[in-house]
């Protein structure tokens, strides 16, 4: 963080790049884009399915990153987390704004939103992350797992999850909470 990575041989961190982006450095932005866009698009497309819509939202996210890099505070978390959180948020916004895609998604049904671990990734780190999350999700009850995956990977609100799973909304709320607490403990998250 002290050295923004301009003259060193090692690749700069996303945080260092974001710091330069905040100064209006477009080369740094391009590097940051190359480093993070696949993750951003991957997450957005997980929710939206449609590729061209997903690229549109990805573009919006990166424009927002450009505009708001000046407000990024690395004391509050990493740059990748900031960007991925923004991506999820914008994907959810798009899903909720688009009634037709909602209808389509509801027809597709729940199965499609469950995590798909069959797809082979060549990137070891991501594979490890996949497996860790898969194991942790496997420790949840069926209802917890369905509720969490519908909410996060489907972008559904808890009331929609309630409709889809045919359980009372209060139950969905508690299952989302105790499911996430279980995941937190399985994944060893502490802040």
């Amino acid at each position, binding site marked *: 963080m002290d050295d923004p990575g301009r003259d060193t041989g090692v690749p700069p961190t996303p945080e260092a790049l974001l710091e330069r982006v905040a100064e*209006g450095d477009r080369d740094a932005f391009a590097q940051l884009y190359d480093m993070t866009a696949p993750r951003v698009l991957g997450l957005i497309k997980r929710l939206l399915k449609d590729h061209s819509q997903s690229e549109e939202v990805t573009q919006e996210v990166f424009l927002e990153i450009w505009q708001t890099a000046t407000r990024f505070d690395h004391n509050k978390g990493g740059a990748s*987390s900031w960007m991925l959180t923004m991506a999820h948020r914008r994907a959810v916004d798009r899903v909720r704004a688009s009634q037709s895609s909602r209808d389509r998604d509801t027809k597709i049904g729940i199965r499609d939103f469950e995590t798909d671990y069959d797809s082979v990734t060549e990137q070891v780190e991501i594979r490890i992350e996949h497996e860790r999350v898969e194991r942790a999700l496997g420790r949840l009850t069926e209802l917890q797992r369905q509720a969490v995956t519908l909410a996060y990977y489907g972008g559904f609100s808890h009331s929609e999850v309630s409709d889809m799973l045919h359980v009372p909304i209060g139950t969905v709320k508690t299952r989302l*909470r105790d499911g996430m607490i279980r995941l937190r403990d399985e994944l060893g998250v502490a*802040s």
Partner: protein
Amino acid sequence: MSKHSSTSGGGPMNPDIDTLSGAYALNALDEAEREAFEARLADDPDLRQETAELTDTALLLGYAVEPITPSPALRASVLDLIGSTPQLPRLSAPDVTDVAQERRPAADAPAASTEAEILEPIPLARQRWFMRPGVLLIGAAAAVGLFFGGVGMANQFTPSPSTSSAPIAAGDVGAILAASDVQHTASDLSTGGKATLYWSNDLQRSAVVVNGATALPSGKTYQLWYIKGSDVKSAGTMAVNGNSVTQVLQGDLQKGDTVGITVEPAGGSKQPTSTPVVALQSA
């Protein structure tokens, strides 16, 4: 495990709302519930801690998703767009200290209501050329709308600062983008390209950023219009010389105005003479 023992100045326990931490972390609450939950967070350090942890946990679900390489066209488009997109000014002093405050909607950003409003078509009773069915492009604009007044989910998303020391100069696109109440919406032009309207009701100004619009023959020009009901005012002509054009509209924006772009004879027209290639509705 977090237990809401409501000690050390925390607010009284509220079991119903406190169960929303999971849904909040997963971004599964509606607007009203999110606000209520955030207000609750401010009172309860334990709940705040739990929510921060669950938010981090949700991120791991995101990191587990397989990356997808975007098309080269997207990269080119994004890198091109930032050339015409000003950045927000830095905050001089962070005035927010906890999750709840950071996530609260800015009081001066009317974001909560804009999405719904923008989705509403102009009443058909007030139809003119720019409102006829088939000409209404507002739905498409809303579908790609992205609202900066909206509050982000991560700790990083600070509300628009009312203390922003943006220069307020009419005709300055930077001032519009830096306005605390700036909003934007985007739509494709029927003739190719994409237009994004940025507006600030506080400044009563708006600007369009047009990318990839078709160049016009020498006898034609693009013209911008402020449209309010049956009242249509020219907001100036717009030359498209390159791939990206940013232009501040002439005249004052009134809240809820629709901005239309038409193709007119060179020099512009007093009133539109053709069907708009795009209509963007402010809120």
